[in-house]
């Protein structure tokens, strides 16, 4: 067989907290969605880099002009630095996955990028603009739709994708999801962090901790419902290292995420055709990094009980499920559609 011109397909989950990429060559990478530039020559000399990404950037944030270019799952508007940051982040992801190298060799790169379900048209256009030059063809889809497609949950299913910036919902009803099939809430992982920081501050007015530290505590010790054990953290108070118990604050902050998510899920299920609602209830897919909060799935299952019960299925790989879904869409999209959507 004569070798055909190369084509590299990629799926990208551009997330507020983490961005993941999966390629048709089997590459899979994830990076924390942070981009930092050394603040001065000294910082550059210490870090030995012009741009720092991910956790490395968070760890060295005091020496960096640190940016988290995706806010609530969307590109921030108005800041040139944030726009530059998103392009750096994309370039970094592409480099990690070897995309740039393949493109240099002549491969056509075609990408499907997931964005929040209710992202505005202007946000999608920003993503399109940011991706310009990195790929030869681009399709933007709602993230929960990508998740559903990747898991073959194409009919009578609902995806609840609890990310850092947003919680996205999508009911699959045998058609490409319309606005009425999808919702986005800003009650998500970052929102829990803010609640937790606020509650701690209320109880301990003397302490000063960054949101990054609070996020770390949540990622380590979050729970909903009954506490599995005390949550004790070390924090400087008036310069003196002290241990404080934040079990109650953690419970309150995490518990607060449950009701709006459950309410929206039930609302969307109720909007499905009555004869299929039971199937949808039994096909709830829980995705996203913040869905890993212990007790979250049980809370949603409880909320379904009074409507006849249902089944919550947690995805196996919440980090890559969106990127994998994007890749599945990229693979299945007809060539003719790619032709229409190519630069």
């Amino acid at each position: 067989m004569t070798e055909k011109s190369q084509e590299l397909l990629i799926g990208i989950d551009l997330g507020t907290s983490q961005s993941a990429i999966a390629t048709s060559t089997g590459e899979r990478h994830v990076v924390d969605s942070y981009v930092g530039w050394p603040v001065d020559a000294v910082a550059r000399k210490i870090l030995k880099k012009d741009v720092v990404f991910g956790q490395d950037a968070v760890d060295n944030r005091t020496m960096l002009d640190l940016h988290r270019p995706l806010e609530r799952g969307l590109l921030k508007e108005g800041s040139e630095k944030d726009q530059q940051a998103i392009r750096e982040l994309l370039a970094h992801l592409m480099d990690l996955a070897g995309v740039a190298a393949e493109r240099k060799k002549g491969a056509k790169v075609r990408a499907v990028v997931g964005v929040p379900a209710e992202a505005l048209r202007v946000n999608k256009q920003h993503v399109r603009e940011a991706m310009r030059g990195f790929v030869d063809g681009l399709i933007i889809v709602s993230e929960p739709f990508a998740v559903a497609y990747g898991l073959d949950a194409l009919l009578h299913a609902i995806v609840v994708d609890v990310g850092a910036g947003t919680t996205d919902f999508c009911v699959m009803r045998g058609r490409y999801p319309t606005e009425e099939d999808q919702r986005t809430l800003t009650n998500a992982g970052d929102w829990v962090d803010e609640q937790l920081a606020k509650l701690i501050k209320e109880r301990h007015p003397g302490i000063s901790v960054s949101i990054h530290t609070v996020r770390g505590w949540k990622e380590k010790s979050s729970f909903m419902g009954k506490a599995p054990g005390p949550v004790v953290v070390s924090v400087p108070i008036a310069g003196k290292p002290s241990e404080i118990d934040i079990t109650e604050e953690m419970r309150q902050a995490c518990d607060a995420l449950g009701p709006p998510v459950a309410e929206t899920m039930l609302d969307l299920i109720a909007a499905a055709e009555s004869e299929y609602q039971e199937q949808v209830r039994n096909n709830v897919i829980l995705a996203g990094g913040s869905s890993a909060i212990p007790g979250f799935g049980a809370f949603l299952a409880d909320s379904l009980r009074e409507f006849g019960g249902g089944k919550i299925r947690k995805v196996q790989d919440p980090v890559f499920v969106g990127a994998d879904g994007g890749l599945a869409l990229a693979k299945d999209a007809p060539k003719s559609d790619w032709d229409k959507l190519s630069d």
Partner: protein
Amino acid sequence: MSAELRLKRELLKGMAEENIEIIRNQPRGTIRRERAAKLQRIRRAVFAGGGTLSIIAAVLLGIAIWSTASSGDTSDFTDSYFLTPDMTPPVAGEVSRDLSHLTEMLTGNEMRAIDPSVIPLAVQRIVVDPGHGGIDSGTKLDQWGMYESDLTWDIAVRLQMLLERTGTQVIMTRNGDEKVSVQARAEIANNARADLFISIHVNWLPNRESRGFETYSAGTTVDPFLKDLAATENRGSGFSLADTRRLIDGIYMGARQQESQRLAEWVGQALYGTLLSKNPDVIHRGVRKAPFAVLVATEMPAILAEVACLSNEREARLLAQPKYRQSIAEALFTGIQGYALEVSAAEEGDET
């Protein structure tokens, strides 16, 4: 096609449409609304009387109205699947159908509305055969990365979409870039009890200046070039020499040879009418007969269309354009539609 595949296709279609609308800065649902409006206009425009000619004329009226209404809309994504106003006079060669006399009837007031379902009544199930595939890439233009198997697949999918929108069931002989033997392709069509078989190919001619398209139905030929062409296409068909002889003998036993010839004429006519405005140098190379195994072994009206010449640089450039490939698919669709209407009208006449 399985329900899951159909659903996936619907989802992917919606996904592409939404993205196109974003690029064009159009409100969500614009493409679907436009498509619905166009279909409505065509339905309104289709009138008919009692006989073959008036039905064809009615289709042409619909075509003419539609073409006028959509003039200027040359976007890649147009859903127009009818002829351009240039359809009528075929230049020459073996195409003998001159429909100009029918266009004169368009001004007549005596035409009555027909049920659009007349098309599926005649032709409900079509097998579309994208030539080559998999390790057999067919003809190729290496330096441009163009392969016959890719081009035929692209055009076939476009044709499939057009046909399915009319409610016609379409069966593809391959599901992507895979090798399927000629014998298997014929079996797919025969097992499906298809009403029509359309095989799509792209030509490669020794004289690189030669260009244009040609359509084939099954038959014998004394033309040494066609003998060679058929031998090339039949290589690796899965049929033994004895099988092929038996099958060739068989094609004279039924009326389908005539029907295939008619279908080849309609498709050739439509290709010329549609492509001329996009490719003024296009040449209708004729409606021909050749013993292609895939045509011989199928049990229904079957044609093979060499839709363009990849060996000709200008046509290769055109083939590289999605819009041109869409035009080819639209032409194939129109030819099929015309044939189906003719058959329907003939059957109607037989009944009365």
